């Protein structure tokens, strides 16, 4: 019994027990369903062992959507608790746990897999490659992300959630002030998925540098590929800092080292410093691919090529460098001198310049364009003004003297949601709607999509704009309640109403998928939007080898050239295609990492050591394995091509 006590939740509530039962029932239901419908073999062959970038992309997509709902549930609980003064829905401890998991889930387990989903789905197609450079590593990245996400998500029913904020500042996150295993979950779950992200970074950089189709010079890459490239360069340079910081944090908590403690020579602020050296580049890792998606969508639906291609590229290169020069703006108030704060104020404001260049480029792309207001385009059009407001409030925050007023208030919360929701989330939903037909063979219903769009946009404005006002009036962030005398009640109620609209909006997305799956036409061809870049040049659904013949590239809009200017995209005979084999090792490694992470969290040393050995065995097996891939014969390719509507 004593052994099991460590798994108990330190601060339980009926809702948590209810979730426990629900999780158990759903898990049993899924297992039973798979057995009953005899789907285990299918699941193993087609998904768990796949190395196909398109299937991995779809798995990222599904995970991201699930995590959006998990993070969304946290959000609506917080807004409900704050909707009126002195609410008693949540107590202080639960509120702490919920804002912590909300932040981590949304950034690490929702936004990150969402951008990885699009990188996986789109990049190889846009550059005319058969897969990414290291397909099996790619599968491993996914399963590490998955293991990390699952680990983090069970924390609230086994052992207790982390409660020190998504920034997990020390000394609060140290053993003295965070006794439960919650913060161990934070350290290890993010570590495991972070290793996966780092591997994706290396994989994607290599893919984009080495595997472009003949004729595609760097300056002829489609804009989404460029944005993915820059984002992955940032990943490669920023994530190691997080890895090391988390490792130091873990040893502080588990092995009593003193990196971030307040005595014995430790330095608590070093954590905040490391966290933001990774953290600020991280926000650009998220926003750049979103910019890339908007670029594709805006030029497609304006029927014009992207305005200022090279200035778009250079502004991203500049952003990638600047993003490493601004991190102190997250802790202007922690006591460093005026000189430091001034330097970082200026670098921060400088970032607004390349960002502004991009905004103008999108506007000029639409200028005199023939705009079609489809759902993806609606998100993109709404993004421009809303994101600009987020950027302007960012510049306000960047003035270090003024930040003493804004810091840690609802004003900050409004700022970053104002950049992340219209910036990242809207881009993901726009991308989802835009690319859905390419991968699933039908278009999502436009009418329902528009309802979703309006619910989300109106909901967003109602939910977050009031926070600017209450923030300036002094409403602190991360406070579970406020008194009637503050007068914040009415605006917070408005905020709650907005959050509720957004929640309804997200539910309509699921309904739309269900509805369109049943009712949408399957006869849409391979280019339903009259699009411009290479990913639309192959069949729908995309065959596993992507292109039967390697495409010849003329410009960043090669497909458009082939439709309008008679550019010959596919030349020559069909030849045998070399593809990588499936493998179970990445999945098995992911599961072992899960066990290892869990064992470390609870300091169970025997399983921890055994699973670490297991990880090394998997790597050794991979090293000694002789796997030369397989070949798809010409006959098989021709058959597939004919089935999909004629050789292209």
């Amino acid at each position, binding site marked *: 019994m004593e052994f099991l006590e460590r798994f108990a939740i330190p601060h339980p509530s009926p809702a948590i027990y209810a979730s426990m039962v629900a999780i158990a029932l759903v898990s049993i239901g899924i297992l039973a369903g798979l057995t009953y419908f005899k789907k285990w073999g299918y699941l193993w062959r087609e998904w768990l062992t796949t190395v196909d970038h398109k299937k991995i992309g779809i798995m990222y997509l599904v995970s991201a959507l699930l995590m959006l709902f998990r993070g969304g549930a946290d959000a609506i609980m917080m807004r409900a608790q704050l909707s009126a003064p002195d609410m008693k829905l949540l107590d202080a401890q639960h509120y702490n746990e919920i804002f912590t998991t909300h932040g981590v889930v949304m950034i690490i387990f929702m936004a990150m897999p969402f951008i990885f989903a699009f990188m996986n789905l789109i990049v190889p197609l846009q550059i005319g490659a058969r897969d990414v450079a290291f397909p099996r590593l790619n599968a491993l990245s996914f399963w590490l992300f998955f293991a990390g996400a699952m680990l983090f998500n069970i924390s609230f029913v086994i052992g207790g959630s982390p409660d020190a904020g998504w920034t997990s500042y020390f000394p609060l996150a140290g053993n003295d002030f965070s006794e439960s295993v919650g913060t161990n979950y934070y350290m290890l779950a993010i570590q495991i998925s972070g290793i996966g992200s780092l591997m994706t970074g290396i994989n994607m950089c290599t893919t984009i*540098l080495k595997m472009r189709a003949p004729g595609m010079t760097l300056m002829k890459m489609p804009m989404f590929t460029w944005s993915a490239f820059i984002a992955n360069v940032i990943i490669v340079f920023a994530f190691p800092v997080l890895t090391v910081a988390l490792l130091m944090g873990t040893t502080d908590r588990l092995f009593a080292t003193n990196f971030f403690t307040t005595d014995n020579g430790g330095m608590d602020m070093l954590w905040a410093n490391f966290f933001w050296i990774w953290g600020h580049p991280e926000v650009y890792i998220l926003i750049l691919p979103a910019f890339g998606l908007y670029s594709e969508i805006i030029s497609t639906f304006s029927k014009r090529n992207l305005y200022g291609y090279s200035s778009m590229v250079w502004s991203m290169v500049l952003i990638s460098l600047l993003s490493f020069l601004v991190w102190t703006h997250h802790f202007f108030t922690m006591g460093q001198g005026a000189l430091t704060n001034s330097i970082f104020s200026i670098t921060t404001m400088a970032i607004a310049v390349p960002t502004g260049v991009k905004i103008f480029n999108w506007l000029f792309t639409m200028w005199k364009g023939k705009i079609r207001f489809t759902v993806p385009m609606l998100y993109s059009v709404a993004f421009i003004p809303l994101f600009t407001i987020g950027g302007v409030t960012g510049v306000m925050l960047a003035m270090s003297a003024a930040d003493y007023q804004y810091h840690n208030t609802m004003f900050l919360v409004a700022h970053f949601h104002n950049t992340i929701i219209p910036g990242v989330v809207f881009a993901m939903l726009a991308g989802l709607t835009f690319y859905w037909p390419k991968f699933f063979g039908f278009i999502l219903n436009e009418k329902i999509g528009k309802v979703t769009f309006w619910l989300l946009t109106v909901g967003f404005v109602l939910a977050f704009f009031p926070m600017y006002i209450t923030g300036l009036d002094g409403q602190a962030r991360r406070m579970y309640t406020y008194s009637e005398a503050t007068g914040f009640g009415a605006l917070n109620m408005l905020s709650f109403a907005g959050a509720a609209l957004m929640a309804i909006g997200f539910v309509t997305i699921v309904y739309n998928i269900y509805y369109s799956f049943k009712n949408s036409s399957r006869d849409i061809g391979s280019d339903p939007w009259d699009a411009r870049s290479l990913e639309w040049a192959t069949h729908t659904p995309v065959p596993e080898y992507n292109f039967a013949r390697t495409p010849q590239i003329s410009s960043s809009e090669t497909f458009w050239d082939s439709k309008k200017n008679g550019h010959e995209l596919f030349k020559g005979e069909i030849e045998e295609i070399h593809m990588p084999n499936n493998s179970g090792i990445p999945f098995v490694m992911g599961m072992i990492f899960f066990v290892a992470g869990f064992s470390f969290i609870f300091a169970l040393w025997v399983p921890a050591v055994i699973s670490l050995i297991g990880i090394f065995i998997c790597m050794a097996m991979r090293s000694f394995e002789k796997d030369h891939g397989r070949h798809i014969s010409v006959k098989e390719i021709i058959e597939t091509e004919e089935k999909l509507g004629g050789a292209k």
Partner: protein
Amino acid sequence: MKELFPAKQVIGFVASLVLTAIALLVYFTDMTFTVGMTILLATAFIQAFLQIVVFMHAGESKDGKAIYTNILYAVVIALVTVFGTLLILLWDM
């Protein structure tokens, strides 16, 4: 004969031995902490650069430019991180 003699590698090898010897001096002679640290840091960076260029053949393949850009980028970010951190946490506290 000239083509057959790997002059670059031999010079590189001797240079790396000399650098190691200089670094060892710090241990065997009596000098202040600052001087010692400076010598160690300087020899370490030259040594690393030497190894990358001479023995790991950076710059000899056709993506040599990409490799140097990459190294430069990494060094710049590392320096910014280290000196930025020192500035924030020690020099300007």
